[in-house]
Every structure is written in C-alpha cells, then in structure tokens.
C-alpha cells in the first residue's frame, strides 16, 4: 500500500511540474510574439462609419419635427422654434452632453439626416458648464477636436 501511495505521489508531482512547465511555455511563446496594443494618444484606432460619438447637426437640413426630442431616452436635446408665415425655423438647439447616453436614437429617427453622430469620443473637460452645448454654434466641438491627431 505504501509503495502504491508513494508511486501516486511521485506521479502527481511529475504531472504537476509538467503542467507548470506547459504554462511557462505559453507565456514564453507570447513573450516573443509582437504586441497587440496601441500607443494610445499618439496612435489611434480608425473609427468606422457607424461609430456613435457626440451628436452633430446640419442646421440647414432640420425641419423642426421634434422627433429626436421625443425619442431621446434621457431628455438631453431641447429645441425651440420660430413660426414664420406657416414655416417653422430652428431657433435654438441645446444638447446637454452630460445626460447623453450615446444610444444613437436621434440620428436613426431623423427623417432628413440633420442629426449625425460624430467621431469625437475624447470628451473630458474641467468645467461642467462646457457640457451644455449649443448645437447651432459652429465651433462647438473645438474643445475636443483641436487636440485630435489627424
């Protein structure tokens, strides 16, 4: 009995050591493989067409149908309009980015393609007030785009 026990013990030891060596082989294999990460701020992943970043607007296309405001789950869009002889025109288009959950509903529901989702995703600022964005302002995203690497 004792001999069988000893043999089993030795067998376990050998199997155990062999399993450890196998693990070491795996890590050594990847040690010599090329790395897969990017050097982030200097190298960036290419964005694809469907990426959902900050909300952008083509004001000339907007027909003030309020669909985007109605579908927004977090109520981060707000529109006011002017009534000029039966034709509505856009007056203000406020976007509270703090509430935005980047779901893309507003872009998908827009009948004329006035709302787009931009590629901007590095959206940290030091001042909370900067999250209240006037989408009609042309230079609204300068805060985040001027540092972008082209």
């Amino acid at each position, binding site marked *: 009995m004792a001999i069988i026990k000893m043999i089993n013990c030795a067998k376990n030891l050998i199997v155990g050591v062999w399993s450890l060596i196998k693990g070491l082989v795996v890590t050594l294999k990847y040690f010599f493989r090329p790395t897969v990460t990017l050097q982030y701020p200097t190298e960036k992943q290419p964005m694809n067409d469907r990426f959902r970043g900050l909300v952008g607007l083509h004001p000339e296309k907007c027909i003030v149908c*309020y669909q985007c*405001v*109605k579908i*927004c*789950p*977090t*109520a981060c869009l707000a529109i006011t309009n002017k009534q000029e002889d039966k034709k509505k025109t856009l007056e203000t288009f406020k976007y509270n980015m703090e509430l935005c959950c980047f779901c893309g509903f507003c872009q998908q529901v827009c009948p004329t393609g006035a709302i787009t989702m931009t590629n901007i995703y590095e959206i940290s600022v030091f001042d909370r007030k900067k999250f209240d964005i006037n989408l009609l302002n042309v230079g609204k995203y300068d805060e985040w785009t001027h540092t972008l690497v082209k």
Partner: protein
Amino acid sequence: MRPDEVFAVIRAKFSEAKEETGTNGIIIPKESLLEVSRYLKNLPLAFDNLHCITAIDRKEKMELVYTLYSIREHHGVTLKTYLTLEDLNVASLSKVWKSANWLEREVYDLFGVVFLNHPDLRRILNPYDWKGFPLRKDYSHPELIAKPRL
C-alpha cells in the same frame, strides 16, 4: 405538462384556485399561498425552482406574481395573489424555496409588502434608512428629474 394540465392538478387539490383569463396565471388567495406552494414543491408537480417574485401596484390592490419552473419536469406556472393596500402581509416562502429569501426582500424594499416569518426582512437595494417604497405608483421624490417628452 401543459399549463392547463398543471392547473387541473392544482384545482383538484385546492378548490379555491382560479385560472386567470387570457394568461396562464393561477390566482390563489393569500391565506392558502404557503400551503399551495408546499404542495407544488413536491411530486407530482415538482416545481423545484422559484424563478421570480414580483409585485405590481394596481393602485387599489397589490398583485404578487410568483413565477415557478420545474427543472425536473420541464414546465412552468405563474401564481398570483392579490393583497389589499390596508393589509400588505403575506406568508414568506423562504422556507419552501431558498431563492425566495432575497426576492422577497426586494419586493419588500420596493413595494412595502411585509412577508411574515421571513428570516431577514431588511431593505436590499435601497439604503437601509430609506423612506418610502419607490415602485409604488403614488411614490414621489423631490429629486426626481424631468421625464423625457413622450
């Protein structure tokens, strides 16, 4: 077993059970809930899995829904109980199915239904010193922010 067969078996044992029209729900008066669930746990029905407990605030009454499944027999049933708002007490099922413990705590936390003989009836999702029961329809909180326009 199909849902109507399950109902037939329950009906044969408990004459107070009623079938809800349109769904597979079985309405049980709250007094016999514990007895019925003890019966359901064992053969021939073998509902070994209490999957979900939830409450619905129907404004004038509180509806409790127990979703049961049987892993052994591959069938399911929905038990329903109605409580009046004045008397929100019901027997705890945590002795029958252990999963009832936390699920009942959750219902207590959000709706204020008191489960009698529950081993550990404390709030679970809200802070322990929270006032009120948030999922009731008459609940309001000063800090609730504006809903989106629907």
